[in-house]
């Protein structure tokens, strides 16, 4: 398929997309190199669900990137406590979504909060995938004792109820961005490792792997250049789902008081700090709730759409 990547995405023949995640997914098919984003968008157009998901995610990505220009006020500056939505701002302008109990503009905090969550969630998920993929490739390709050790290790970590693990780790090491990334990596890598291992067990017996072995390629080359690119389909769907989960995790940790340290805005923390006053000032709580729900929904719809598209082929 590699020769088609130069053709305009609209007229290029559709590349075969990999199967969905387990159980049928274990037959990840040979696909071309990562296609340009234009091609990906053309593919997404086949599924309404995927388009809606991509739209929601895209919206928040743009908001996060443009936060300094979009946010009307400093997210941590205190003005008029409990100002309702639409109330005038003392320095001119209005509190479009109102102000919280400390008088901070909620719109600005929601906008800046998207930055925090869209930075830490992809970083944490990326780290988890890096570790999980290496573990899975080693376990699936090397087999033997490496496989045994890695598999038992992940069984043990996966036996923890996930939030129990997060709460214990974060409360022990302290709440900070880096600790959230480490905790997510620790808790998610075993699950990713299982998926990768399953895919590798199927792919390692393919002819092109045998060919590479005959050529005398190194183990690392075979794992990362021959096997990994062919396993990427189910992994992309899984990454979308996991990004959604990680966003929920970051939100939940913030809600439980174990999230990013104050005063910087964090959607979960905003809900926690304001919910006791929601009887008389519901606007303080409702907007962060809508923000996090719509972002997670975006990733989940995207994952479902990609799976749907891949099933059509």
């Amino acid at each position: 398929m590699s020769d088609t990547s130069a053709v305009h995405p609209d007229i290029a023949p559709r590349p075969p997309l990999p199967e969905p995640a387990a159980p049928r997914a274990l037959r990840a098919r040979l696909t071309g190199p990562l296609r340009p984003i234009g091609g990906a968008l053309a593919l997404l157009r086949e599924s309404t669900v995927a388009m809606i998901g991509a739209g929601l995610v895209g919206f928040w990505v743009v908001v996060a990137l443009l936060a300094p220009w979009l946010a009307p006020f400093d997210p941590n500056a205190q003005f008029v406590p409990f100002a309702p939505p639409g109330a005038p701002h003392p320095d001119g302008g209005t509190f479009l979504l109102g102000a919280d109990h400390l008088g901070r503009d909620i719109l600005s905090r929601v906008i800046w909060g998207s930055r925090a969550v869209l930075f830490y969630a992809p970083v944490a998920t990326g780290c988890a995938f890096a570790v999980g993929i290496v573990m899975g490739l080693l376990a699936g390709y090397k087999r033997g004792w490496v496989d045994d050790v890695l598999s038992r290790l992940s069984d043990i970590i996966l036996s923890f109820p996930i939030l129990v693990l997060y709460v214990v780790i974060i409360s022990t090491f302290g709440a900070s961005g880096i600790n959230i990334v480490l905790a997510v990596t620790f808790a998610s890598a075993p699950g990713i490792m299982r998926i990768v291992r399953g895919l590798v067990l199927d792919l390692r017996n393919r002819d092109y792997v045998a060919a590479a072995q005959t050529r005398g390629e190194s183990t690392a080359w075979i794992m990362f250049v021959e096997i990994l690119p062919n396993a990427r389909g189910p992994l992309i769907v899984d990454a979308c789902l996991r990004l959604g989960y990680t966003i929920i995790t970051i939100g939940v940790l913030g809600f439980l008081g174990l999230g990013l340290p104050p005063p910087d805005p964090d959607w979960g923390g905003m809900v926690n700090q304001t919910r006791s006053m929601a009887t008389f000032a519901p606007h303080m709580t409702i907007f962060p709730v809508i923000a996090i729900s719509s972002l997670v929904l975006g990733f989940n719809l995207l994952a479902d759409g990609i799976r749907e598209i891949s099933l059509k082929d």
Partner: protein
Amino acid sequence: MLVFLGKRLAFMALTMLAVSILLFLLLEVNGDAVAVKVLGPYTTDEQRALWLVANGYDRPLYVRYFEWLGNILRGDFGQSIRFRVPVSEVLWPRLANTAILGAVTFGVMIPLALVLGVLAGMREGSRLDRSISVGSIVTTSIPEFASAVLLTFLFVFWLGWLPGTSAMNDGFAWRELVLPVTVLVLYGFGYIARMTRASMAEVMQTPYIRTAVLKGLPYRQVILRHALRNALIAPFTVIMLQINWLLSGVIVVEFFFAYKGFGALLLEASLNQDIYLIQACAMVAVFVAVTTQTIADIGYTYLNPRIRFA
């Protein structure tokens, strides 16, 4: 079968052992830090040193670990720092409360998820299928604390039908259980429904279902007598694994609704660095999770004749 059972139980014991080592290392490897947590931050070095010796923290790590493990096996989890009573006195009543919450949640969630999953999987790609699938994605995408906020706005502030907290201060009240259960069900049912749907859709494409349809059986009988039996094997495993998920979910929900359960206890212990209580809660949580996992494995093997008679 016996060999299989033995293997599963041995693995379960090994997992618990590994988890206990992990927890012990995480929380107790540094004796000085333990002393600070127990005695508080405003103590002198001598006070801490005395406490460490008095409580045997001057001994090697492995001696302390085995003593700790022995105590736990006898049900002695030590003293809670926050509540100033033995951990077991706080732990078991809280666990019982969570068991009630969990049982009611499962009682509502499982039938709902199975029925929706079967309905969706019966005719793959139908309008009903699509709406159930998308609906379950939407409910699964809303974090528990977010749906708790939305439901509280709707049923507590606006309609005034339900109480906003579930502390049960005046004894057990079903009304206070409604919102926590609804939040858990909304967040959790989608996963089981989707698994059931996938399993059902797969079964519907098998030759024996086609045979049943072609020999003129009523559709209802095809579904009830032929399809369901095989379609429900996979969801069964998932249902058991949901107990693991539920132990996470109750932390958020119990905290939100001030329900006096196990999840809220674990959170309170963690936020206050009550290490003996954290250890006890985490060990209990993993024990419940691993036990249900083992039961799921055994049950799956038993339910699936292709494995049972192999």
